[in-house]
């Protein structure tokens, strides 16, 4: 009991608590920054979306289908390829939003396991994770594309799956 009490009163334990408090503060500040950024982006988005409403244009606006959706991730995508065309692909992310990805020969690395692939090796329905840089036209320039192994398919005739433990 005395050992436990000694540990809880030690400098090490105090350091752990202070470290966690600092990390928590960092998270809160980060969240606050995200909220402020989101509000500004939302306002800017609404302003440009409603510009034609306020001044001219269709009543429902151009970006109506994005209403209520969270802001998209700009530097990475994880999703399924739904279209391959030339040097770009269209990926449907987890949030069901389609993103156009530009692949450049010199700068984009495409990997499956240990193999390096070309854009022609990419197929629709491939599950990929992309790290890239957003450009000014709402597309992402891919830096790294990793083709993930396909998710195991459920066979309806196979019956209940027996876990290996």
């Amino acid at each position: 009991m005395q050992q436990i009490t000694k540990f809880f009163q030690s400098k090490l334990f105090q350091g752990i608590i202070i470290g966690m408090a600092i990390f928590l503060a960092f998270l809160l500040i980060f969240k606050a920054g995200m909220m402020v950024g989101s509000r500004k982006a939302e306002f800017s988005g609404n302003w440009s979306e409603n510009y034609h409403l306020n001044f001219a244009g269709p009543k429902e606006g151009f970006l109506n289908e994005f209403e209520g959706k969270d802001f998209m991730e700009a530097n990475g995508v994880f999703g399924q390829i739904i279209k391959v065309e030339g040097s770009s692909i269209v990926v449907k992310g987890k949030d069901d939003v389609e993103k156009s990805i530009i692949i450049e020969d010199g700068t984009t690395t495409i990997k499956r396991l240990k193999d390096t692939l070309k854009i022609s090796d990419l197929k629709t329905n491939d599950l990929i994770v992309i790290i890239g840089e957003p450009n000014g036209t709402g597309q992402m320039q891919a830096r790294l594309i990793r083709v993930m192994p396909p998710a195991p398919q459920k066979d309806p005739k196979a019956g209940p799956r027996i876990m290996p433990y």
Partner: protein
Amino acid sequence: MVQQHNKNFIDNSPEPPKELFGKIMSRIHREQRLGRIKQRIVIFSVGALASLAAVFPAFQMLKTELAATSFFTFSSLLFSDFAVVSMYWQNFALSLLETLPVMGLVAVFAAVLVFLGSIRFLTKDIRDIASLDLMTNKKYATNN
């Protein structure tokens, strides 16, 4: 007769020891301190129990947030494609930050922090109360 008797009693009554006042005051202070420590023990016990109970829903929240984002998928690139990731570390770091399950982490860290803080203060108070009890018992033993 009665008045004379009372006067004799007051005049001849034994003087209290000089240190009696100090002893009474220190005992009062000790009891007050004991009361305060007991109050703190109750508060920190409730705090520790409540935060311990909050850890589980907080973990559940974190698990749900992690399932909704691709944080683990992006993190796995660090192990599979370290060379490329280190080359484009800024994009990688931003993609991790974009998918960081902040609210889940805040909930877990806040609950764990309150729990650890409560435990720290609780152990200190228990140690203090034990030493106060020990002091009282020792004095009682020496006085008898």
